[in-house]
């Protein structure tokens, strides 16, 4: 097809331009860049916290247990709400409008507002900890400010999720019915819905925490208990919420890199939806307190058991493409596969936590036959951190793969494969080693919360060293991403100046690289879930020389209108 033309990319050049930027692409890049920055910060803090928990003879960096709690808590908050969620949100804000053929994001200026609000909240959060606030803090006003700044970040993320969900619901291009939405965009839709239904509960808990500290119903000396406020987000199955878009992106990437789009489109969409549903709701119950199954927590236990199935099903369907397609080792494919496997590992490791409640249940039925003294007691221990480590690894690996896969769209250049492969290997190894250390410490009864940590036992120190090595490797992987991003941004090319490395079948590959303002020369018209696979793409109101056939009323079009040859901006024809 003829190269599609469009207006040049509109990267703002002034402060007010950046504040009210109306194109989704700069906003997406801002979220990704800011998220990576805070993810590096959070992993440095996690490294410090992990190192401190190794030491059984006293603190080396933190001055007292409260400061240790503050470091641990800030690392966790920055990792989730400062790093992983904003990076995923940024990729979604950049990619989803392209995938669904929209010229822009719904409420693009609102998305810019969400970014600046989130950034302000993140800055306030760090300042607040520096002023002795947050869980473990000694100054009531700054503990209240901690709740406010975290609420600001969470509120901004909720608004970003509302915008993403509205875009998928209301801004799809002509012919893109719900069942034709690409996997990545669909997974972002599920991610947005689950997030905007579950994160407000965290806001409610933060409000109550702030009021209880403000009116001294929770003495400031006990502020360390506030680390539990985020349990509704950081414990399984809620923590799997972070991996919903990672799973969707992995399926899309596997389809592109094997040359065989994943079959049974609606089945995969259903599996992603079921996975999303299972990451919501049961977390309200709380896992740490479960000692035996009863009617109060049966839903949670069933949810934790069931969540393995959609992950397994999605990976199995993606595996079919691997089996029947051509495979060449590249970072995007390797990352997509590894992120899926890490997620599967996380869901399987979490099942270990069910041993105690299931044995407790049978003990209540057959008290003489079951010996609870041999039960594996993991709930409330660092076992939860092991699951978190695997989930964080899955997200980091998935993000590296996605940045590699869509690098021509994001930055107008193909990222180097070797550093990306190195980062993926480092991140996967790091998260597994981190998880092994935490799981072993959990089996040895080390409690999850820092104020309860006692590492005087020699064996626990060994496990702590293992976990610390894992965190360090993960930090190294994220540092490689950060350096690669800086290089990509510095050498970023103007809109439409680059070719694509892969032959994708979804709409983003029909747009120039990087896409201009407006993304497409005219609204694309699609008739299938993979509009570029069989030359089915057309543009509404465009003559053939501009890139596609008129299509809104194709029968009445000029006879000269040629069928679309989508995605020919340097792509080869194999897709």
């Amino acid at each position: 097809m003829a190269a599609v033309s469009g207006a040049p990319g509109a990267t703002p050049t002034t402060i007010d331009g950046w504040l009210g930027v109306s194109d989704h692409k700069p906003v997406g890049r801002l979220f990704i860049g800011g998220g990576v920055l805070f993810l590096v910060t959070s992993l440095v803090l996690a490294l410090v916290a992990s190192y401190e928990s190794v030491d059984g003879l006293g603190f080396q960096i933190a001055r007292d247990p409260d400061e240790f709690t503050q470091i641990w808590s800030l690392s966790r908050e920055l990792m989730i709400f400062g790093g992983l969620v904003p990076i995923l949100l940024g990729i979604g804000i950049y990619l989803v409008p392209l995938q669904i053929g929209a010229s822009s994001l719904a409420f693009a200026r609102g998305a810019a507002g969400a970014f600046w609000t989130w950034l302000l909240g993140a800055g306030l959060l760090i300042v607040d900890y520096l002023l002795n606030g947050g869980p473990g803090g000694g100054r009531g006003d700054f503990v209240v400010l901690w709740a406010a700044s975290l609420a600001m970040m969470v509120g901004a993320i909720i608004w970003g999720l509302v915008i993403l969900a509205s875009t998928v619901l209301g801004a799809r291009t002509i012919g893109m019915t719900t069942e034709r939405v690409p996997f990545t965009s669909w997974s972002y839709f599920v991610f947005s819905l689950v997030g905007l239904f579950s994160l407000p509960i965290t806001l409610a808990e933060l409000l109550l925490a702030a009021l209880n500290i403000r009116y001294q119903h929770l003495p400031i000396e006990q502020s360390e208990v506030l680390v539990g406020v985020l349990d509704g987000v950081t414990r399984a199955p809620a923590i799997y919420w972070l991996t919903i878009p990672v799973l969707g992106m992995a399926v899309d990437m596997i389809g592109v890199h094997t040359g065989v789009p994943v079959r049974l489109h609606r089945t995969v969409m259903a599996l992603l939806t079921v996975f999303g549903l299972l990451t919501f709701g049961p977390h309200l119950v709380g896992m740490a307190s479960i000692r035996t199954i009863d009617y109060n927590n049966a839903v949670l236990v069933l949810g934790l058991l069931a969540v393995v199935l959609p992950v397994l099903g999605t990976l199995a369907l993606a595996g079919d493409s691997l089996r029947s397609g051509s495979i060449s080792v590249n970072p995007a494919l390797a990352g997509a596969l590894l992120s899926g496997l890490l997620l599967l590992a996380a869901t399987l490791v979490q099942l270990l936590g069910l041993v105690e409640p299931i044995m407790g249940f049978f003990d209540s039925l057959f008290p003489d036959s079951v010996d609870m003294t041999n039960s594996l007691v993991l709930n409330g221990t660092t076992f939860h951190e092991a699951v978190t480590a695997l989930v964080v690894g899955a997200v980091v690996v998935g993000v590296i793969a996605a940045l590699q896969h869509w690098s021509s769209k994001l930055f107008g250049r193909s990222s180097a494969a070797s550093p990306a492969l190195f980062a993926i290997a480092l991140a996967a190894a790091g998260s597994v080693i981190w998880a092994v250390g935490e799981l072993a410490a959990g089996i040895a009864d080390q409690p999850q919360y820092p104020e309860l940590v006692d590492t005087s036992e020699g064996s626990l120190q060994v496990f702590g060293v293992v976990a610390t090595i894992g965190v360090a490797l993960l930090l190294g992987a994220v540092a490689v991403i950060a350096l690669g991003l800086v290089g990509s941004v510095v050498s970023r090319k103007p809109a439409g100046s680059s070719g694509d490395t892969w032959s994708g079948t979804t709409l983003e590959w029909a747009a120039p690289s990087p896409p201009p303002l407006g993304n497409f020369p005219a609204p694309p018209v699609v008739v299938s879930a993979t509009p570029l696979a069989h030359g089915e793409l057309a543009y509404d109101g465009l003559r053939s020389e501009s890139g596609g056939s008129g299509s809104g009323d194709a029968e009445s079009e000029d006879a000269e209108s040629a069928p679309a040859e989508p995605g020919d901006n340097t792509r080869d024809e194999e897709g």
Partner: protein
Amino acid sequence: MAVVTHSHDLIPSEITPPEVARPRLLVLAVSLVSAAMAMGFVGLLSVYIAQRADVISTGERWLPDGVDIPLTQPNFMGVTLAFSVITIWWALYAVRKNDNGNAYLAFALSLLFGFAFIAQTAYLFTIMEIEIAADPRGVLFYAIIGTHIVMMIAAMMYAAMTALRTLGGDYNSRQFEGVLSMAIFWTVTVALYGVMWYVIYIMK
């Protein structure tokens, strides 16, 4: 936007391609925001119910000593809000009929009912005599009731802005998405009062 060349003589040679119609994006977004808001509020009520159950299971009385929650004011507040739902949808109906006179009257009545609701809540605070600093239960009462008042104020500001835009001619029988989304937000806020009325004022 890309420049597209058309061959038809009567159409200018260069026009920008049309945007895809995006119906009801605002309605979708406001509905999602309302749902998120409802979840946060339900989360607060869940904490209230759980703590109340814990206290009652020990054989103690849930309400602090000396505190009494009368039912007259909450009932009238509910009736006031029920009327406001009727008037807010009346505003939408009037806008869709291009009946601006009735639309302004409906907006004004809705805002009046909103102010009346807040005034009644303030009065209820004075007779409930719950001290927020004296008892942790006070935190729960004021967090829940206060959150709902903030929602109500947001709904009133949204309604006032919508009324002004209607006055300015932005909304009419063909373009009423803003009024519809405002009506949805208002209705959800009122529905949440219904839940709160049962949990706080009836169950006590």
